[in-house]
């Protein structure tokens, strides 16, 4: 378990190093700003909700679009 945690800690350090060091320093010393105040709360659970809502929104969009096209077809059938 410890080697895994070490690897992940190293990965996080690499992440920070890859990003601008000033930003990384700001991240370490300041509380989350803006949208992050919501998203990072509750151990980042809102991020999972955002992902699920995105998928749900995409599916809903598709469902409504399909329904509209079907309605058009049905109207044409009625006119016949």
């Amino acid at each position: 378990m410890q080697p895994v945690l070490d690897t992940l800690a190293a990965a996080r350090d690499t992440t920070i190093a890859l990003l601008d060091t000033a930003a990384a320093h700001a991240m370490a010393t300041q509380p989350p700003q803006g949208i992050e105040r919501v998203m990072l709360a509750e151990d980042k659970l809102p991020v999972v909700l955002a992902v699920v809502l995105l998928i749900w929104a995409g599916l809903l969009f598709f469902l409504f679009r399909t329904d509209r096209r079907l309605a058009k077809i049905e109207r044409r059938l009625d006119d016949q």
Partner: protein
Amino acid sequence: MALADRDALPALRSTPAFRVFTVFAAVWVTVVLCLGFLGAVSALPILEHTARNLYFHVPMWFTMMLGWLVVAYQSLRHLMTGRRLHDVRAEQAAHVAFLFGLLGFATGTVWARFTWYVGTDIWYNGDPRQVMVVVQLLITGAYFVLRDALREARQRGRLAAVYALFATVTMPFLMYVLPRRMESLHPGAEGNPAFSEMDIAPEMRWVFYAAVIGFLLLFAWVYQLRVRMRVAELRLDEREPEA
């Protein structure tokens, strides 16, 4: 096959079997959602609860790729038989697969924003995985542009089918081989296995498999609806050309 037969479209219907299937799919996905939020996840720094996105983000890609296999299969059948039904199926599978691809990209971006790029304002940083995904979406998007550009139905079907087959071949490379070889923040980069790096708790593995199946079921559902819709439109067009 006589020319008339090739263009023939069957009268598709909603069958009882399909209705049972949709109820099954709905229940399955609902259970996956519940398990996804309530089940245990490995305690990982930076990721924390977002590890649960494994159940939602990753299946988008499995679904997109398998959806595109459907496109490839139907395109091949269209080229072999010339039947219009296969062209219809190929196009609708492409639509639904593209939707899942877009969702995969959007969900991945949101996930990355609050993990890889947490503390910064970065939403997109040219990470190799993200770039490859954008390229893949452009390639699959071009399928629709191509279809739109061709007026004659038979030519459209055949050229689109050929393009679809080429697009399918690019997929394993852009989605799988290349990103794994490049330096990336995405799990599975630089030759590392994607799963063990996340130190998946055993329970997560099963929920993940269930999630993949669930989204594949959703794909099948939406795909079938779209095919029925398109066939109905085309049959109406034949009977009574749209004004």
